[in-house]
């Protein structure tokens, strides 16, 4: 069956929607703001043609310059998801988050590099090439950029983290499915918030795994992140998973009462009565021991302010990573089915003489050519997990683990989960207000040197010295500390907490009960203000 351009595709013809965008033109009004930094960091893949507005020094969201991850739809710039499949795709609409920011008056400066469809932890799976971590080790200040050590910015929202770290914008929107905001925030030394699932609209966000995908915010500091969060965290009737105003109010009222019992406004707040849990399962063998120094310093500070720091156990944690990859891959295989070269996706014709009688061959050709290897790997894994024979042992089993992970969290938190508990549930005095753990098992991993930065399709772009380079599966270990909060839909904030022994940034994560995002950010603010060397 010859599959020629069907009528439907003509209705949405490339001339109207898929126009080539000259976003990266050197005439962009933003180029002088970036002062060539993007060339070194490769954080932005499209740059806005709209001129920068006058920006008085103030923290109102309308005064911020904000970059948007390339898997979030903008009508003025392409949304490629760093995939060949969507190369040149300009959506006909703005995502709800983008719309809210525009209405508030913020400048959308450009689109940020990311791993293809959000799949990756190092931002090396990208048709736009890897993002280079802009962090400068103190000792390398005099070394020219080209000769410095190149490290990963983390992924998948690596471009968003790097753009903030390189001061190309005040804040950036990212998405976090299993750690894609917190990991790059940790590697680049910026603040990254993955809010509670359902608080920020996903309408206009190109799905990777719907039940896990969260839009989040990266910024230089917690205040900026909070400013953006407050502007975009509202109920959206277009997103069927958007939390209702009622649930939001219920959770935030409880959190507000808790916040008011501490004087967070003070530089040295009195935190007596605040209970902070340290989950014992979050210190795996793979954890770089020098990261612990930073965490210890943060714990010491919180303790000195009066908080009680208690060890807690989340016993299902060891199963989280496997469950996450089964669920995320299954949903990805479903969500990415639309990129078949008929309605969506660059179409690659069969080579001359090929057997065109099997439609499967036509689809396979397009999908094998235009998806990168990591995406293909996950689509295959997910497809398998959903087959009739594997469904019970993989997909349903993973859903069971997900339930266990959720109840683990509910068992340690003081606040009840407003979406899953009876309305009468009261706080458990012995529970903790937040959890604290290292954001990543290490500092930013090195990237391969040299001209071949790895199209990432056949190589994960990691240096030989990196333990993560040993096998493809090891890359997934990067997410080991971040996926549980994703599976449970909880707010998680990575805050810079000094540097590792190698001089690269270390992040500490604060996790709270669902809807307690404000409390998480308040405590994140205290963590952020911890002096680098106590």
């Amino acid at each position, binding site marked *: 069956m010859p*599959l020629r351009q069907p009528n439907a595709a003509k209705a949405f013809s490339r001339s109207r929607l898929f126009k080539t965008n000259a976003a990266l033109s050197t005439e962009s009004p933003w180029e002088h703001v970036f002062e060539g930094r993007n060339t070194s960091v490769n954080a932005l893949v499209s740059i806005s043609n709209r001129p920068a507005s006058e920006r008085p020094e103030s923290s109102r969201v309308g005064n911020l310059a904000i970059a948007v991850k390339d898997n979030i739809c903008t009508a003025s710039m392409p949304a490629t998801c760093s995939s060949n499949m969507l190369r040149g795709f300009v959506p006909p609409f703005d995502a709800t988050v983008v719309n809210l920011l525009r209405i508030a008056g913020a400048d959308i400066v450009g689109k940020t590099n990311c791993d293809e469809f959000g799949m990756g932890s190092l931002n090396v799976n990208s048709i736009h090439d890897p993002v280079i971590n802009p962090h400068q080790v103190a000792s390398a200040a005099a070394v020219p950029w080209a000769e410095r050590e190149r490290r990963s910015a983390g992924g998948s929202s690596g471009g968003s983290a790097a753009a903030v770290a390189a001061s190309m914008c005040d804040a950036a929107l990212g998405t976090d499915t299993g750690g894609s905001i917190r990991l790059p925030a940790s590697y680049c030394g910026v603040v990254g918030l993955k809010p509670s699932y359902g608080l920020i609209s996903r309408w206009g966000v190109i*799905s990777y795994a719907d039940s896990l995908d969260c839009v989040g915010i990266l910024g230089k500091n917690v205040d900026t992140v909070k400013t953006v969060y407050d502007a975009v965290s509202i109920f959206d009737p277009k997103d*069927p998973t958007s939390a209702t105003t009622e649930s939001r109010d219920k959770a935030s009222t409880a959190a507000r009462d808790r916040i008011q019992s501490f004087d967070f406004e003070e530089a040295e707040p009195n935190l007596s009565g605040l209970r902070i849990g340290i989950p014992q399962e979050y210190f795996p063998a793979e954890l770089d021991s020098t990261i612990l120094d930073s965490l210890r310093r943060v714990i010491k500070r919180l303790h000195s302010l009066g908080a009680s720091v208690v060890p807690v156990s989340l016993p299902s944690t060891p199963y989280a990573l496997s469950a996450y990859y089964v669920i995320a891959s299954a949903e990805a295989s479903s969500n990415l089915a639309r990129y078949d070269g008929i309605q969506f996706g660059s179409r690659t014709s069969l080579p001359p003489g090929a057997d065109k009688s099997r439609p499967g061959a036509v689809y396979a050709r397009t999908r094998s050519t235009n998806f990168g290897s990591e995406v293909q790997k996950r689509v295959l894994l997910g497809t398998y997990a959903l087959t009739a024979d594997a469904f019970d042992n993989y997909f349903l089993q993973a859903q069971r683990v997900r339930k266990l992970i959720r109840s683990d969290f509910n068992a340690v938190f003081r606040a009840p989960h407003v979406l899953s508990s009876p309305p009468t549930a009261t706080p458990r005095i012995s529970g903790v207000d937040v959890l604290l753990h290292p954001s990543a098992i290490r500092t930013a991993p090195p990237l391969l040197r040299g001209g071949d930065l790895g199209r990432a399709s056949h190589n994960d772009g990691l240096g030989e010295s990196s333990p993560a380079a040993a096998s493809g599966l090891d890359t997934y270990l990067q997410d080991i500390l971040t996926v549980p909060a994703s599976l449970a839909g909880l707010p998680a904030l990575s805050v810079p907490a000094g540097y590792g022994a190698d001089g690269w940034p270390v992040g500490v994560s604060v996790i709270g009960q669902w809807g307690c995002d404000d409390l998480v950010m308040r405590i994140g603010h205290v963590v952020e203000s911890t002096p680098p060397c106590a």
Partner: protein
Amino acid sequence: MLARRNVRQSRQFQQLWRSFSSYGLHGSREAKQDKRWPGWEVVVGIEVHAQIKSRRKLFSGSLTSQPGEAPNTSVSAFDAAFPGTLPKLNSKCVELAVRTALALNSEVQPRSTFDRKHYFYPDLPAGYQITQRYAPLAKGGFLRLAKQGIPVRITQIQLEQDTAKSTFDARRRESHVDLNRAGSGLMEIVSEPDLRSPEEAGDYIRTLQAVLRSVGSSDGNMEQGSLRCDVNVSVNRTGAPLGTRCEIKNLNSAKFAMMAITSEVFRHIELLESGVPVPQETRGFDEDRAETFKLRSKEDAPDYRYMPDPNLPPLLLTKEYVDRIRRTMPELPDAQRARLLAQGLSPRDADVLMAVDAGREVGFDGEPGRGAVAYFDKLAQGRDPKVAVNWMTHDLLGQLSARKETFGDNPVSVSQLGELIDMVQTGKITGTSGKTILRHMIAHPSDSSPLELATKHSLNAIASDDGVSLRVWCKEAIEALPDVAEAVRKGNPRVLNRLVGSVMQRSRGRADAQSVREMLEAMLMNSP
């Protein structure tokens, strides 16, 4: 390729089939002998896909398309599976599906969920169809066949998206995809294998069609594809266990379904008689050759990789919600017929009214259409129902059909016809004049009342002038037909009717026939 055009889930059916066969040989039905295949038993189950008659699609705000619309005009970004779009359930579709469930005595589930069914085909832009695989909207129920009176058990009713339409232009060797239908709401209604003959299957489809139309949930139009059937057929020797089933896909009329089943039964018998087991397969139906043909075998059955839809929360329906739908939904055919008979209508009159309704336009989103029964109900208020129905069936419908018009074209309002009937009943005009006025109202639609028309056309009854006009007309008639008058005088009363007719003609129908007869008799008997 045809095989992929209407891939529908069959696994579910297999499971139900199995569970059914395990509790009794053939369930509740007695073995039924059929002259066409003595010694053999036929078992049939049917899956119907009925398009929901809603103004908007199941998960997007875009309008559902109407037949004849230009391709790709009723399409939203969601229908075209644009990346970044999300589904939003249309509550009108849910309401109509709940009406259907109640009409089929099915149990509406307090919690149902949505799943994705995956396969690649150009008319499925997202690469999956949203359906209700694991927890359907309603379970159980039955439909009593209109002709044969047999209850056929319903397994379940689920909501799902319709696909786009793909056509192949053989001359230009091009595939065309029209997304107008993509994402419209469908109800999948699955029966238990309770049917025992092609005729019962036809009866089931037609009865179901009438029920869907009466509750307004679907227009059930098979020609336009808003109702499509897949039938499952198996054949076994009387008393033996169930045979292997074959599924025949996408039958688009009750007649074709019956033909397909008949042809399939003979095919199975032929195989079994020659000692060859029937292979389990999915088949299509060639309407021209009246034969089924193989689409794929059991081994080639696609794995649809069902997955709970991660975007759509469970559909929770409270008892209060279901009760409200039950209270406000239109009357079912059985109940309606019983009510009409109780009002004193003859079975024939009730059938006429209901048959008119069966052909009416079904309103969108469950809004009542302009039906004959509803018209009758209003007309009969404060009037004798039998008189009202006579005017409707004999005069209104009769005159409309004489003009080759349907009830949908009726320009006469209930109040106009009501006033007309009242005028005749109170003797203000004669029945004949009433019919004349009705004919005028149909031919010249206006808001004028029948009284105004009667006056304008001098059709008021002449009973009030003490018989002066009548006497004049009778005299004229006798003078015009002296031979006839003479015959009557000589004791031949049968020819009196000719004189009566002549008088009626002179009065232009205003005279009352009985009065004319009496006047004529008096005049002829009393004069020489």
